[in-house]
């Protein structure tokens, strides 16, 4: 019998206990993996190459203030700027207020929109059709699939922020690497339907020549519109998205405290199990030592057993996490934040590492005591 076999045999000796411990650890690691995945998606992902080249220019005080339309040409004239497009969030309502019918609608300029958002792909003939129809719109492929829309369909969007409604013809379906949950239409529709907004723009999407140009372009834009009635704030697209997350509250502290609680909880569960099973085996330990097993080896056996159990729990937990994230990234209401998110290999490795560390720490102390125990005392032990 090899040592590994000895460890596995022992780990599954009390099947019920092992099953309960492993599932308990698996559930905790499921939560840990989910939290780490969300953390990574929110704070560490830099997005696509195209996204890192993009900036958002908005009114310095708040997104609810508009910017003049003539800023567009001024921004375009700056060095390092390749394309600029105006965007206006419409915030309308499709069908009803149910979360599954919620998606974003933006008014924009069909001539330049896809030049700035190069990571959105649309067939050229559909783009032309959109550019020709002033009441046309293009929709995200995922969104079209969800609602069963086809080219030529009409969409009715009720305005809740602006006192006007939209009746749009779907002229194109674009694909994106990450679901955008958005549709885009010609902004002149808003200008004509709600004249107070004519000549005003919600925010600008700016494409820089390269990712290295982004900080320079940002400071140049803000410098140019500093001492004017409507000052701007320009930031990278990633920073802009982080702003939305920051609005939800102290998300970082929330995630961190859950992670801490979860890790501590698995530590308790695992330590408890190991303490119980080691205590039951006091006589066996003494026997092993009589047979010539050294203290270090006995210690290794128990620690190995605990680590095997917790790593097994970790594997099960991460596998479930992959499934949960896959389901959540499609669920209404969650897909805005989790769209396109998946559990990365590094995240899985970290989860397994945590599992192994927990196994090690939880078994070390009881195993150390057991391995140092007096043989005669141990043999006499009645458990």
């Amino acid at each position, binding site marked *: 019998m090899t040592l590994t076999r000895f460890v596995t045999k022992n780990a599954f000796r009390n099947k019920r206990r092992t099953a309960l*411990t492993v599932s308990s650890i698996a559930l905790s690691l499921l939560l840990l993996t989910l939290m780490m995945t969300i953390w990574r998606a929110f704070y560490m992902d830099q997005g696509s190459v195209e996204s890192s080249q993009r900036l958002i220019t908005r009114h310095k005080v708040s997104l609810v203030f508009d910017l003049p339309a003539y800023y567009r040409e001024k921004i375009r004239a700056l060095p390092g700027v390749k394309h600029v497009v105006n965007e206006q969030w419409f915030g309308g309502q499709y069908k009803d207020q149910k979360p599954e019918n919620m998606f974003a609608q933006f008014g924009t300029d069909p001539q330049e929109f896809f030049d700035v958002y190069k990571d959105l792909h649309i067939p050229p003939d559909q783009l032309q059709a959109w550019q020709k129809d002033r009441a046309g719109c293009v929709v995200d492929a995922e969104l079209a699939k969800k609602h069963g829309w086809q080219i030529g369909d009409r969409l009715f969007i009720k305005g809740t922020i602006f*006192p006007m409604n939209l009746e749009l013809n779907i002229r194109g379906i674009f694909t994106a690497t990450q679901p955008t949950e958005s549709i885009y239409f010609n902004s002149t529709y808003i200008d004509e339907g709600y004249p107070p907004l004519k000549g005003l723009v919600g925010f600008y999407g700016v494409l820089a020549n390269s990712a290295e140009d982004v900080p320079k372009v940002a400071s140049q834009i803000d410098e140019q519109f500093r001492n004017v009635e409507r000052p701007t704030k320009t930031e990278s697209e990633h920073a802009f998205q*982080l702003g939305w997350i*920051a*609005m*939800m509250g102290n998300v970082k502290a929330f995630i961190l405290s859950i992670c801490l609680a979860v890790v501590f909880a698995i530590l308790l569960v695992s330590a408890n199990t190991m303490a119980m099973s080691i205590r039951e085996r006091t006589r066996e330990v003494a026997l092993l030592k009589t047979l010539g097993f050294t203290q270090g080896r006995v210690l290794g056996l128990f620690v190995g057993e605990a680590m095997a159990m917790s790593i097994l729990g970790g594997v099960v937990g991460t596998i479930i996490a992959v499934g949960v994230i896959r389901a959540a990234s499609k669920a209404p209401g969650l897909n805005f934040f989790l769209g396109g998110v998946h559990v990365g290999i590094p995240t899985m490795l970290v989860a397994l590492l945590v599992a192994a560390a927990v196994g090690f720490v939880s078994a070390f102390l009881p195993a150390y005591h057991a391995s140092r125990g007096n043989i005669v005392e141990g043999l006499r032990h009645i458990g």
Partner: protein
Amino acid sequence: MAIPISYNIRNLRLRTGATLMTALGIALTVTIAIFIMALLAGLRDAFATSGEPTNVLVLRKGSNSELAAGGVAREAMQTLKDLPGIAKNSQGDTLVSGEDILVIVLPRKDGTGETNVTMRFLTPVGLEMRSKVKIVAGRWFTPGQREIVVSKSIHDRFSQTNIGDTMFFGKGNWTVVGVFDSGGSAHESEIWADINQLASDLDRTQYSSVLMKATDPVSAESLKNRVSDDQRLKLNGMLETEYYARQTSTGGPIKMVGLFVAFIMAIGSIFAAMNTMYAAVAYRAREIATLRVIGFSRPSILTSFVLESLLLALLGALVGIVLMLPFNGMTTGTSNPVTFSEAVFRLRMTPLVVSWAIIFAVVMGVLGGLAPAWHASRREILASLRD
């Protein structure tokens, strides 16, 4: 006959390590559950105490938020003021307040970034209509000046909000001149300033909303219907309390994530409790058989072990509640989907929250103890004694 509870207590004390570890695991789960429930209770509270039943809020038809563009035209104000059933103040002014809402970005004090904050612009009549709001430092703004007053929570949570600080928007710098306390209502997340100054600064020709005070709740109801039914106005009236009640959906994401985490952790804790109880049953096999021989029935063994698990869970609940106590009353904020700005609220461990936490722990204890207790009561006496 029932086995005395002191038997269980002594057993728990005998295995201190296992008892403490299991109870702490349950305590962690309870802590997370209380935390989420206290957050939601605080949010609900903030919106439930907002608005007065005699106040009627008027918005443009089709809009569900004060933030929407295109509101109530200034000309409509006179029509509204002439409606019957509106209260007057001691000077004989009709209590109708045209108001405007803006959202501005302010940096958080704790350095976690910037967020949107609601700014409400109103007249002194509007101040008078919010009877719960009191000034606690400095003074109210002077009409016709670029002066603002901030709520206590905003003052505590955001930089640039001390008396004397200024912020730039419109056509100049606005100075903070006072701090108000709204008694935990939704106004706790707001900054207030003079509407006429704003109108001239930003060339606003409309109000985003109008607030009217009716003489009593019954006339408030009819006032609301009159506004909505008037074809000339194209406006929509609703009770102020109804408007805020709708915003409790603000806690949606917290609720969803929190319940999910608490649920998963609860299952984990139930497994852990089961483990501990199974070990206890195995350890005491001979003892249980002896109890049976003395004459204790199977049901009383079952009850006794479930009770023991329950005690374990209650200990966990107690520790969990104590762990959460320091966070009670803590101020925090989240984004309000109706106003797109920060809703500030306090963590509130209400008696209801605490009772739910205890129930939650009891459920974990019972579910964790049931199967092991069942096994204990089913054991063959002779086989166990011989073990």
